[in-house]
Each structure stands twice: as C-alpha cells, then as structure tokens.
C-alpha cells in the first residue's frame, strides 16, 4: 500500500520546471504592480507633504528598473543624481547619442537588480533591511558612472551641455525629487494592467423640460432617498473643482438636508405628505410646489433585529486614506448604534470573494472590530462574486422578523468579474424579492462608478450614499442609521395630475433618473424607491399659473382647449406605496390647493439648494438669478441647523461662486 503513496509522492515531486518566459513575465508584471501599489500609497498626499526619501529613491529606482541596457541604466542613474535626468530624453542631441531603446527583458532587469543588490548590501546589517536598503542602493549608484564612462555608446556631455539652465536650478534635493517624480510618471505610462486611476462614470439625464399642462397634465416619478450626489459635489468643490454636470442630481442635493416636516399620525400610513406652494425665488411669475414626505420614525427601542452583511471591496484601488481606512472608521462608528440581537457578517471581494467574519452578534464588538481591522486592500475586483456570497450569507442569517440588509462599500471599481452589467442588475432584482435590501456606500474618488452604484441601489431596494468624510459617515451611518437600515415603505411612487384650469406649465426639478411612465404608477410590478424609517423626501415643481407673462410657450391659436373646472385646485397628488414585504400597493390621494402661501424656512432653503443644483448643472430656467441670490437665500434660511449642514452648504455655494468665475 505504501508503494502507492510513495508513487504518488514521486509523481508529485517530478514537477515540470516553470517556463522561463512565463516566469519572467509574471515577475515583470508583479514589479509593475508593486510600483503601482507604492505609487497609490503616496499619491494622495499633497506634494509638499510627500516624504522626500521614499519619493526620491523609489523614483530613481523606477528609472533604473525601467531602463534597459547596462549603459543607459548607469548613465541615467548618474544623471538623475545630478538632477538633469529628464533632459536626456528631451534634448535632440541627447536622443541621438542614446542607443535606441530596447524592450526590457525581466531577466536583464533582474540581473541588474541583483548586481545592485549585492553592491547595496555588502555593508548591510540584516535586521534593518527596510531602512538601510534605500540608502544603500543610492550609495550603490555612485560607482556605476565610473564603470560606464568607458562604454563608448553613451555621450554624457551632450545632454549635460544642452541643459545648462536646468542643471543650475536642479542642485537642491527639492528639484531632485521633482525630477525623480517625473521619472515615476513616465515609467508608469505604458502600464495598463490595473484600471486607470481616473475613470468616473455618472448617471444622469438631461434636465426635465417644461411641460405644458394642456398636453401632458400628468407627472409620475419614483421617490429617491439617496444623498450621494451632494457628497460627491462637496468632495469636488472642496478639492477646488466644479463638479461634473452629470454628477449633479438636484433631488439628492435637496434630500440631503433634514427638514421639519410633520410626522404621520399613529395608525395611519407610514409616511405623511405635506404640500405647500410659494413664490419661486428666481422667477416672480411662477410658483414652487413642494411635496415633503416624512417617514414615520418607529420607536427605536422595539425595532426589529438586524442582519447586516458588510460587503467590502478590498481591491487594490481601495488602498487610499479616503477609502478603506475611512470605511473601517465609518463601520466602527456604526457598531455603536447596533444592539444585542443584531448580527453582523463581513464579506470581502478582491479578485475573489471571501467570508471574513462569520455572522457574529453585534455585542461582540471586539471580534467585529478586529475583523475590520485586518482588512487590507489588494487585488482586482470581482463585484459579482462578492454580491453572490453576501446574499448567500444574508439568506443564511435568517431569523424571524429580522431585517436583512447588505451594505456594499466600494469605490465603484466594478470592472472585473462582471461581463454583463445587465445580468448583474437582473441578479439583484431577483434577490430583491427575497426581502434582502442592498445599500451602496461609495468611498473615494478616481474610479467612482456612480452609474453602477445607482443602478445597484435602485434595483436592490436600497439607498446610495457617498462617504467622503468621517462626519458624512456620522450622518449616514449613525444619525440616520435607522432610516438607512429599516424600510417602512417600498416602491413609493408619486403622481401629480395638474389642473389645466389653474396651471399652464410645470417642470419637475430633479428626479430625472427616477421618471416613471404614467401607466407604471398603478403597475405594482414596476419597482420604485423606498422610504426608510424617519426618511424625508422633498420634490419641487416649478409651476406657471394660467395667464401670466412667465409662460414660456405661446398659447395655441387654433387648438387651445377651453378650460373649465375648479380653479381652487392646482392639481391632484397621488402616492402609492407597499408595506415592506407586501405585493400590493396602497393609494393615498389628496388635492393640492392653488393658493400660494408664505414660504417657510425649510421651503426657502430647499429652493436655494435646488437653485444651487441648477447653477451647477443647467441654469437656463434661472434667468439672472445667480450665486449671490442663492447664497443670500440659503443664508437667511439656515434656521436652527443643529449639525451645521446648512452652513456647510452656504460655504459650498460660496466656493462654487469663486470657482465658476
């Protein structure tokens, strides 16, 4: 019998030797990735703060590793040390005097690096390899030019002479590191293994047009409780850039702020809609119709227990202070809000999906925190695998009356592992019926795939939030935790039929991505947005009353219908929603009175934010109303603002004003 085992052993020992070409290729690619990882690790710091040692030395090393022949290698090494390394590529003489570039083979590079390693380490103590290696490899460069001086193919004099001026400037360490960084940038250019660093995709439609009531009296849309757009805009503005127009979704900006809407009475619908009509700030001849929806806030003490699956993207791109570390802190904050009975599991995905933390009682904070702490970024992203595992985990957690939710945290890097985004959406839409909710928290900029995130959250019955700071995490995951986690109404749709006798034209501000067909309102199969506990939703219409000069379209001479009816009603508001887990919807109806009233603080502030959104995207309906007016309006309408959200918005408006000048 043991013969068989020995035979197996012998068979396994006789391994084929690895193919040298494959090996070289793997080593080369690994080194590229190594550089990239180092690069992203240092990239986010402002250049002044950049630690000079690391920057300079890795830069020099990069140049060395990416050059081919021994001659150029040593030559450029010495030139970089003089601070004129870049000139050799720019000066025409320099180009001529250099041997034509050859494709580097990893073996050559490896031999080079070993040679240098040996030189570098001759004096080195073993125990502090990390720190002295850099200094040593720097020292090792010094003798090399002398070796190379004998090689005829290199003309050091030409670039040195042609770059007198820059040589003069480039004496200090600052310039040196500057050139070294150019070296990094140049060496990175041809590498295309990992997704590009700045690939953002946004989801938006053209601004809703003005509709003529006589032709199109019915407006239908799904509510949207997301707030991601506002945080994305904030992150852009605080970085000194106007946000891309596509990133502006006005309804998400307006819904970012808490308003003081009346709560629903006990025993009624889980939310209450209040309607008000007031003067439009940017057009004295039109009115703003505000529909404010307040979700009930169930007593938090008897809330159902939660099953939470954190689905965390740990791909290489998450290795950024604004991404994985912020994510860990954010989830850490949230743990404080959970209570005994809640359970947490952690699934990560990066190249492959894995269950990092088995379902664990939320009271075992130490276990959860240490699991979070162990997460490290690396690998590419396979979002679909991770989602499947997260859904399986959530299904396995079960529990009677538990609310199950997956919190997907990612920077939007969904491009590996999904071959068909539609299939992914279908998968989520199918899982939606199992009662598991999916919310998306996005972190960091650079490859924010806003469109996919939106699609996932919308199809997964969840919300999408963008977390750029710890205080945003506090708002989304702590202050508004119950809303983010406990749905009180599913598939909430709003339909307004305007009264042609009272309204000539209307325009829905925002909600472009949430438009529904008129007939879908009554179709319970059509998915729509959810309202969570305590959530607030605000929708604004700009309406033009019949008759005034503000009307944008001329009345038809021949076919203008004769208007009749109750002019006291502006329109008729209909809301449909489903209780969580139910299949049939409930209808709420209420007429909208046509008499405008005084705008309260909340209404004015919402209008200011809607104005801000339009100024940032499509200001064509605002006339001469600009940033000054928006800032004044928002400043006056700050109200109590206990957490300073509105004050921050005013700051952002001021920033936008400066940036758009």
């Amino acid at each position, binding site marked *: 019998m043991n013969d068989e085992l020995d035979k197996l052993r012998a068979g*396994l020992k006789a391994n084929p030797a*690895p193919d040298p070409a494959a090996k070289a290729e793997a080593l080369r690619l*690994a*080194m590229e*990735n190594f550089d990239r990882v*180092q690069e992203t690790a240092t990239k986010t710091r402002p250049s002044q703060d950049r630690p000079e040692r690391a920057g300079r030395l890795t830069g020099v090393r990069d140049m060395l590793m990416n050059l081919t022949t021994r001659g150029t290698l040593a030559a450029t090494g010495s030139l970089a040390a003089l601070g004129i390394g870049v000139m050799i590529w720019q000066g025409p003489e320099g180009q001529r005097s250099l041997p034509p570039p050859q494709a580097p083979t990893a073996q050559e590079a490896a031999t080079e690096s070993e040679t240098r390693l040996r030189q570098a380490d001759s004096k080195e103590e*073993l125990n502090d390899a990390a720190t002295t*290696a850099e200094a040593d490899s720097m020292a090792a460069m010094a003798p090399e030019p002398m070796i190379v001086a004998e090689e005829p193919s290199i003309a050091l004099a030409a670039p040195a002479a042609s770059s007198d001026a820059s040589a003069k400037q480039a004496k200090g360490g600052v310039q040196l590191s500057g050139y070294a960084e150019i070296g990094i940038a140049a060496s990175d250019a041809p590498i295309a293994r990992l997704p590009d660093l700045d690939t953002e995709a946004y989801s938006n439609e053209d601004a809703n047009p003005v509709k003529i009531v006589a032709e199109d009296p019915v407006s239908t849309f799904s509510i949207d409780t997301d707030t991601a757009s506002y945080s994305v805009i904030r992150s852009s503005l605080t970085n000194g850039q106007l946000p891309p127009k596509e990133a502006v979704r006005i309804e998400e900006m307006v819904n970012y702020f808490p308003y003081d809407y009346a709560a629903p009475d006990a025993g009624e619908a889980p939310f209450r809609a209040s309607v008000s009509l007031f003067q439009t700030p940017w057009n004295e001849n039109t009115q703003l119709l505000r529909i404010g929806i307040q979700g009930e806030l169930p007593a938090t003490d008897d809330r159902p227990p939660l099953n939470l699956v954190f689905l965390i993207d740990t791909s290489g791109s998450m290795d950024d202070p604004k991404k994985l570390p912020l994510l860990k802190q954010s989830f850490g904050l949230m743990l404080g809000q959970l209570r005994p009975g809640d359970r947490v599991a952690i699934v990560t995905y990066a190249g492959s999906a894995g269950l990092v933390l088995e379902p664990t009682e939320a009271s075992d904070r130490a276990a959860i925190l240490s699991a979070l702490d162990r997460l*490290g970024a690396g690998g590419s992203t396979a979002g679909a695998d991770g989602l499947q595992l997260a859904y399986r985990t959530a299904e396995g957690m079960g529990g009677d009356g538990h609310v199950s939710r997956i919190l997907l945290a990612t920077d939007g890097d969904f491009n590996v592992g999904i071959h068909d985004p539609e299939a992914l959406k279908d998968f989520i839409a199918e899982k939606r019926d199992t009662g598991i909710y999916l919310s998306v928290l996005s972190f960091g900029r650079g490859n924010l795939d806003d469109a996919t995130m939106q699609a996932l959250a919308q199809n997964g019955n969840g919300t999408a939030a963008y977390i750029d700071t710890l205080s945003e995490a506090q708002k989304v995951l702590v202050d508004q935790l119950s809303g983010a986690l406990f749905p009180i109404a599913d598939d909430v749709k709003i339909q307004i039929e305007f009264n042609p006798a009272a309204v000539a034209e209307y325009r829905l501000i925002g909600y472009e991505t949430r438009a529904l067909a008129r007939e879908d309102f009554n179709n319970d199969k059509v998915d729509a947005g959810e309202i969570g506990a305590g959530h607030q939703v605000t929708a604004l219409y700009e309406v033009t009353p019949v008759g005034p000069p503000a009307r944008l379209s001329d009345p038809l001479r021949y076919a203008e219908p004769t208007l009749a009816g109750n002019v006291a009603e502006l329109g008729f508001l209909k809301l449909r929603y489903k209780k969580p887990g139910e299949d049939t919807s409930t209808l709420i109806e209420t007429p909208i009175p046509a008499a405008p009233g005084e705008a309260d603080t909340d209404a004015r502030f919402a209008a200011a934010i809607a104005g801000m959104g339009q100024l940032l995207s499509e200001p064509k309906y605002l006339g001469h109303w600009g940033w000054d007016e928006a800032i004044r309006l928002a400043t006056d309408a700050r109200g109590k603002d206990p957490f300073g959200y509105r004050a921050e918005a005013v700051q952002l408006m001021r920033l936008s004003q400066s940036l758009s000048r």
Partner: protein
Amino acid sequence: MRMQTPDEALAIAAATGDRDAFAALLSRHYDRIHGLCFRLTGSRTEAEDLAQDICLALPAKLGSFRQEARFTTWLYRVTVNAAHDRRRRVATQRKAADGWGDWELNRRAGIAEEAEAQDWLNATMARLAPELRDTVALTLGEELSQKDAAEILGLSEGTVAWRMSEVKKRLREMARAEGML
C-alpha cells in the same frame, strides 16, 4: 548579503516599499509558487496563469503578512487560497471543468515511460476529491508536515491526518480496481 536575508525580513521590507526586497523575494519564491500551483491544478498553463495572478496580487497582499508567521507558510496559504478561488470561479462558469481532467488533451509526446508515470499521476489525482488533492499537494508534493499543511489549509491537524488516511484508502481502492493488489 541580501541573498541570505531571511524571507521574513525581506517581506517586511517589501511591505514598506522596498522594491529590491520585493524583487529578491519574488525571484526566490517564484518556482515554489509555480510548483504548488501545478500540484494544485495539474495543468501547466493553469499553473502559469495562477502563479502570475498570485505574483500580481502579492504587492498589495504583503501588507497582511504578519511577522510572527513564517513567510513560506503564509505564501503557501496565499497560493492555496488563490487556487481555491480560481477553482470556484471556474466551477461556476463551467461545471466540473478541471485541469487534471484536461490533461489528456494537453499531453505532449514525451518519453514514453515518463508519460506513463504522468498518466498514472493524473488519473490518480483526478479521482481524488479537490480537498484531498490539496492536502496531497502540500504533504507529499511540498513535503510539509501535517501540522504545517493544517495551518495553511486552515484546518485542524486531525482533519489533515484523516484526509491522508482517506487518500491511502482511495489509492488502495484504485489499485485494487486496476488489479494491482
């Protein structure tokens, strides 16, 4: 001499951004990675792809290397996990496609004796369940102790011992079926 620097010191240095340390570490261990990949997959091309994936992921993964662990143990674990992931992916895409099963198609004409030995090996490996195959690859192929193999696979030592006895049982059954016993 860098050549004698222990793996662990190199790994820590590489994790903190030492490019040379990483290059040295990788060239030192590529063959080991490739070898285990081959033993786990049974296919040369699969092993090359897998080894490349692992090399690509290593720069980022190094951050999770803990000094108290032996680097080779850690590396074996990374390799085994990567092989599992790959197997799982392949399994979801097209059921039951397996490198060991594909071997016949890829077989090259070689020395007849060697080929025969390989055939036996492949036939044998193909008939072992994946978890037994992993265990065999580590204990027989890499000549690790059952304790080390258990650590890498995240199992108890007892499970590995049980698996090995299971392997022996299967081998005996196969031999009997082929009339060798």
